[in-house]
């Protein structure tokens, strides 16, 4: 990295100069944004596009909840309702949940966190944004041209023979977006393998990086199956192929196998990045090293692997052999074990911490609670007899919204708030943000908890009119949705406000560890003025009043003490530290402690 100019001396005296020399100042024209290969600017492009998709999908959700306020189908026609929930599902899954954390936060932070200048393939990175936009454009065009009424699951033979919506166009859109996902996956994997800075060993990687890495592996391995199944659907619609058509000797169930072989791993594409985010946030605001770092890594990888072998739990009622069902059931119980471990470890991380309740922390702890409920209801669904009852009812709807909206969207907001000062250099009004986070938690539960009860009472999903006995629960749910909608609009407002009127954040407003906090906010084009050197373990937080020289946990490694060697490394690390001086308190804290080997050491 010798080609990077030495640090700009002006910055050291005047912290307010910096915007022009940050990545944001690289160019102001639209063209400069649309042709940028800077991972941070691409992340901003993704932030804008995923936000637009989120509000589009959200608008559909509002329509759905309004329709379900009364048992009669009064607001929408049956056809319109079916098109609305399909739009909601397609947009939310493929154009919001799957890309959002890897491409926005992952793009922005992964190179920073491993001390790299950019991702491995910057131009591929930009290309994948264009693919995502083209795919999204095609899908939205299909919706505008009259819509699709298959649901996001495209079950055959409805989608191939009977549906009169724009199925092929939507499928092409999702197909194209799939390649964007694959490209991002490859980029992240290669980046982590090849661009880690000096001293950034595998077991020193922040768990966010591990999470993006595991996610990218799943993206790479599962998305081609989705591409394949979409091509088959298109071929069957356009050329009358008979792969799924029973009249031509095909089998509709084959579609379900292929689809869920992608889509179950895809649900982990949607949640693992969120797990990474909350680990960063919780450790920072509890000021603790994460409990059981290695177990957290193995849990991520375990979920990624076992997640490939549970798809049949979506097909317990499809007529699949009982033995197959039982095997998938057992594997589904197994995949829940690593998820449980993560929950326990996050909780244990709080123990003996110095906990504060910044908005991102509220979101992150909200994630832990809601993910726990989503995961546990997954166990209900993994038990064959119970699933036979609640499959395709609102119970399933509640289950996956608890994980994907309660979990993933909360995690995204946690991350967006946590890194907002880094991304924009500005602070948002903390108190308003805390209110919004609390409202989101409350509104979410009011919206989706009644759906568990509805499902257990037998209310099927995808009904636009329903027997009046169910109404009371639907009304509660719709009421919650109003609160939830407001809670999503609020951050939009104050985050935009903060861009202009927000206080300058400084480089490390949360006093967080991690390389991304050691460069300027917003970071310069190539992230670090000098390549950082990593000499300490990740999450090197200690209780502020911890006695000098005491480790936080994991003292069993004491017998392998290599303190002298470490002290030297730390010294040279400090000399090579990146860009700007950390705030005084952090510096004092760092200087005053002896580094303690931990979990990940020396692997």
């Amino acid at each position, binding site marked *: 990295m010798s080609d990077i100019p030495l640090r700009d001396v002006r910055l050291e005296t005047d912290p307010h100069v910096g915007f022009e020399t940050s990545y944001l100042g690289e160019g102001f024209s639209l063209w400069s944004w649309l042709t940028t290969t800077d991972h941070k600017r691409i992340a901003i492009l993704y932030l804008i596009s995923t936000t637009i998709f989120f509000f589009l999908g959200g608008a559909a959700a509002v329509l759905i909840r309004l329709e379900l306020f009364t048992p009669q189908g009064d607001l929408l026609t*049956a056809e319109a309702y079916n098109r609305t929930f399909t739009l909601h599902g397609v947009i939310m899954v493929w154009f919001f949940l799957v890309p959002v954390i890897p491409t926005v936060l992952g793009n922005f932070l992964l190179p920073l966190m491993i001390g790299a200048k950019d991702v491995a393939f910057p131009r591929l990175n930009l290309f994948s944004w264009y693919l995502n936009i083209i795919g999204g454009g095609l899908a939205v065009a299909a919706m505008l041209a009259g819509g699709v009424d298959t649901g996001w699951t495209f079950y055959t033979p409805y989608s191939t023979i009977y549906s009169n919506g724009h199925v092929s166009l939507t499928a092409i859109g999702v197909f194209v977006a799939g390649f964007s996902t694959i490209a991002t996956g490859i980029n992240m994997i290669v980046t982590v393998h090849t661009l880690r800075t000096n001293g950034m060993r595998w077991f020193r990687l922040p768990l966010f990086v591990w999470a993006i890495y595991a996610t990218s592996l799943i993206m790479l391995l599962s998305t081609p199956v989705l591409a394949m199944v979409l091509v088959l659907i298109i071929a069957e619609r356009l050329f009358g192929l008979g792969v799924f058509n029973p009249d031509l000797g095909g089998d509709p169930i084959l579609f379900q196998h292929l689809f869920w072989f992608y889509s179950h791993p895809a649900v982990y594409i949607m949640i693992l990045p969120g797990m990474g985010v909350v680990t960063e946030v919780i450790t920072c605001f509890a000021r603790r090293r994460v409990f059981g770092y290695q*177990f957290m890594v193995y849990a991520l990888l375990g979920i990624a692997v076992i997640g490939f072998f549970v798809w049949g739990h979506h097909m317990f009622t*499809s007529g699949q052999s009982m033995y197959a069902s039982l095997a998938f059931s057992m594997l589904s119980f*197994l995949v829940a074990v690593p998820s449980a471990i993560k929950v326990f470890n996050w909780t244990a991380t709080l123990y003996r911490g110095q906990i504060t309740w910044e908005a991102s922390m509220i979101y992150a702890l909200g994630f832990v609670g809601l993910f726990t*409920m989503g995961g546990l209801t997954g166990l209900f669904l993994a*038990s064959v*007899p119970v699933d036979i009852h609640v499959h395709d009812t609102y119970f399933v709807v509640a289950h996956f919204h608890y994980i994907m909206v309660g979990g993933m969207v909360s995690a995204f907001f946690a991350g967006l708030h946590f890194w907002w000062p880094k991304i924009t250099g500005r602070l948002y009004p903390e108190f308003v943000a805390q209110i919004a986070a609390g409202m989101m938690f409350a509104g979410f539960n009011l919206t989706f908890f009644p759906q568990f009860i509805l499902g257990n009472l*037998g209310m099927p999903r995808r009904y636009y009119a329903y027997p009046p006995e169910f109404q009371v629960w639907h009304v509660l749910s719709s009421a919650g949705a109003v609160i939830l909608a407001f809670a999503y609009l609020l951050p939009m407002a104050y985050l935009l406000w903060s861009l202009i009127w927000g206080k300058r954040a400084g480089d490390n407003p949360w006093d967080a560890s991690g390389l991304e906090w050691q460069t300027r906010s917003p970071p310069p084009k190539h992230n670090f003025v000098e390549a950082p050197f990593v000499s300490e373990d990740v999450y090197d937080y200690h209780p502020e009043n911890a006695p000098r020289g005491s480790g*936080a*946990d994991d003292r069993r490694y004491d017998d392998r003490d290599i303190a002298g060697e470490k002290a030297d490394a730390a010294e040279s690390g400090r000399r090579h530290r990146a860009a700007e001086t950390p705030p005084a308190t952090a510096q004092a804290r760092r200087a005053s402690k002896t580094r303690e080997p931990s979990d990940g050491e020396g692997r």
Partner: protein
Amino acid sequence: MNEPGIWLPQASSEAAATDTILIALLVVSSAIVLLVAGLITVFAIRYRKGSPASREPLPSIFARDVEFGWTFATLGLFIAIFAWAASQNITLAHPPAARMEIHVLAKRWMWKVEHAGGQGEIDELHVPAGELVELIMQSEDVIHSFYVPAFRVKQDVVPGHTERLRFTPEKPGTYHLFCAEYCGTDHSRMIGRVVVQSPEEFAAWLTRQPQEDDLAKSGRQLFVRFGCAGCHEGQASVRAPRLSGLFGAPVQLADGRTVTADDAYVRDSILQPKRDIVAGYDPVMPSFAGVVSDGEIAGLTAYIRALRAPADGGVY
């Protein structure tokens, strides 16, 4: 009907077994949620920033042992729940030889039931309490799913497959029947009811049911009563197509499409006549939606089906 309140009635023997597992899961899950939420709350208060609580290094048990401990505890717990839930499936998979077989045909958007004696029902299923029933189900078009919440049973009906669903109804009463697999426009209208009767009532009900011939006879009466005959027969003042020989034949429509006159087409013609206008006729036929019931449509359809050859006209 009106089942939902806070918990469904257990109207089949499967219901009780399923509920037991469900409630056990509920207890275990609530305990875990309370534990996690409780710990988070306690920690958040006790270890809030600057509180006097001790931040000594973690006690030595708080090491890898704890981690292994809860990993294996969770694993054991989950495997136990799995094994318990699985045992119910294994029992159910081996049914006794004696069972009452009923055929069900699913199509957009109705359930057609045919009892062993030929009695037919639409969007309704009568079954006797206390007897093992086996539904043999097929679909004519897309995937549907036969779901009776009060029985806790559900089975997808996949075109090209023959699916079987077994249950033993226990509690007499009337329960919801839903289509649980999304099947297009009127998916949410593909609902009906299941009537569980005592064996005696059920036997009496069976003998009261018209067979297919009777269905057509009653259809003839309806055809006159609803005024269909006024347009579709004899010297009507309105010009309307003759219906003899219609069933199963191709129909040329005004918009150029050709469709086959099957059950769904006749049903559409009655409920949404404006949708498929026969070529050469004016769209004057009124819609009978909300006027004729599904059962009556079945009767009318049976009558029209019986009018196969032109010579047959007016047999009934």
